[in-house]
C-alpha cells in the first residue's frame, strides 16, 4: 500500500480529478495548502505598491492506493496537472503501513479498495 501526496495548482484540480476518474481512482482527500518551490513566489501590485508574495496557493491531494494502482494514479495526476510551466507541483509516494475503514473495521487492502 502506498500513500500518494501531490501538490498541484488549484485551478488544475478539476482536470486532475477527471483524469483520476478515468483511471478508476475515485477516493481522494483535497486540502488547501500554501507553499513555494523553485519560483520563490511572485510579485503583485496593490494600489500601486509592489508586494512580494512568497507563499502561493496550492492544492494538496492525498490518495491511498494498493500497489498495482500506484503508476496509473501518478500518471493521471501528471496528465491532469502538467502545463509545462514552473509551479506545476510535485508528487510524493510514501509507504503506507496500515489502513482501517472506520465504519466496518476492515483492514489493509480491503479498506483501501
Amino acid at each position, binding site marked *: 500500500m502506498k500513500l500518494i501526496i501531490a501538490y498541484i495548482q*488549484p*485551478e*488544475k*484540480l*478539476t482536470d486532475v480529478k477527471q483524469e483520476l476518474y478515468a483511471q478508476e481512482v475515485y477516493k481522494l482527500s*483535497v486540502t*488547501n495548502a500554501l507553499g513555494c518551490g523553485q519560483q520563490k513566489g511572485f510579485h*503583485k*501590485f*496593490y494600489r500601486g505598491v509592489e508586494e512580494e508574495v512568497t507563499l502561493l*496557493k496550492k*492544492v494538496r491531494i492525498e490518495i491511498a492506493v494498493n500497489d498495482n494502482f500506484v503508476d496509473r494514479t501518478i500518471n493521471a495526476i501528471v496528465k491532469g496537472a502538467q*502545463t509545462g510551466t514552473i509551479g506545476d507541483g510535485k508528487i510524493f509516494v510514501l509507504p503506507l503501513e496500515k489502513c482501517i475503514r472506520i465504519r466496518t473495521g476492515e483492514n489493509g487492502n480491503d479498506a483501501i479498495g
Partner: protein
Amino acid sequence: MDETIINGINTVWVLLGAFLVIFMQAGFGMLEAGFIRAKNSSNLIMKNFIDFCFASMVFFLVGYAFMFGNGNSIIGFSGFLLLDAPNQSGIPLYAFVLFQAAFAGAAATIVAGAVAERMKFKVYLIYSVILSAFIYPVVGHWIWGGGWLSQIGFTDFAGSTVVHTVGGSSALIAAYLLGPRIGKFNKDGSPNILAGHNIPMAALGTFILWFGWFGFNAGSTLAVGDGELISLIALNTCLAAAIGGITSMLAVWGRWGKPDLSMTMNGILGGLVAITAPCAFVSPGAAIIIGALAGIFVVYGVVWVEKFCVDDPVGAVAVHGVNGIWGTLAVGIFGQKALGLAQEGLIFGGGFTQLGIQLFGVLAVVSFCIISMGIVFKIIKSTVGLRVDKMEELKGLDIGEHGIDSYSDFQLFLTK
C-alpha cells in the same frame, strides 16, 4: 400655487428619482457579484462602477443629443455637450439629463452579469461606451425622443423596452458570442451549477434594486401633479415585485422541491421589470397579474436560456429580456384609456391594436440590439478577442485583470 414652487417640487421629485436610480447601480453590483464566484467578484464590481462612470460622461457628451436632440425619426442630432439642447420635459434640463443618464447606466450594467467571469475587462469598456453612447440613445429616441415608434403609438412608460429589453437582448447576444464559462455545460449540453458565492449580498442587492425602482418608475412621471399618478405607480411597482417573488418561489418549489432564494429574488426583479412599462396605465389588480406571470416567466426563462447552452450567470436575459418584452406587451393587454393610454388594452375591449403596436415595437428593438451589438461584438472578437485565456479564467479575473483579491486573508478554494 406659485409656478416656481410647483417647478421646484417637480424638480426635486425627478432628482430624487435620479438619485434612487443611481443607487440601483449598487443593487446591480451586489446582486451580480453575489451570484458569481468569489474569484471574479472584484472584476464584476469594477465593471459596475466603470460602466456608470462612462455612461454619465458619454450621455452628457453625445447620448442626450442622440436621444432627445432634434433630428429625424431615427436619431436626434442636436445638443451635443448639452449646448442648445432641446428640452421638452417640463423640468430643468440638468435634472432631466441626470435622470436619463442614470437610466443609460442601468441599461449598460445589465449586461455585466451575463458576461461575468470570462469577458476581458477591456472589451467590457468598449462595449459599455458603445451601448450608452449610441445603442441606448437611439432606441430611446425612437420611443421617448419623438422617433418613429412613438409616432405609431408605441408606449413604454418607464423603460421595460428602452432600458430592460435593450439590456437583456444585448446580454443575450453577448453571452451567446462569448460562450459558456469553463465547466458550465457537460458534453451532452446539460448544465452544471457554478454556485454564487454570497447569496446574502445578492439579497441586499435585490432589496436595493426594489427600493431604487420606485425612483425608476414613479420618477418617470417627471412631475408630482396632484399625487394620484405617482401613488398609483409606486403601489403598482411594489405589488408586481411582491407577487413576482411569490410566484417564482412557488414555481421553483413545485418543480424542484425547494423554495430557492436566488430564483425568488430573480422573480422579484422580473416583476419589477415587467411593471416598468405599464406602471402608469394599469390598475393595481392588473399589476398583480403582470407581476405574477413575470415571476413564472423568470423561472422558465432561466431554464430556457440554458437549453441553448447560453451561459447567463445571473439570469439577466430571463429577468430583463424576457420580462422586458412581457411588460411591453402588458401595456397593450391591461392598459386603460382612463389612465392616459391612447387606446384601451385588449381586455378592456380595445382589440389588438395597441397590443400589435407593442409587439411590433419591442421586436424592432430586440432585432436592432441583437444585430447592432452582434456586429460590435463580432468586430471585437476578431480584433481584441472577447475572452480571457483559459488559465486566467480558472484563476479568476480578480487577480488576472485587476491584480486584487476580493477577499484577501480568506483562502479561496477553487474547485470549479
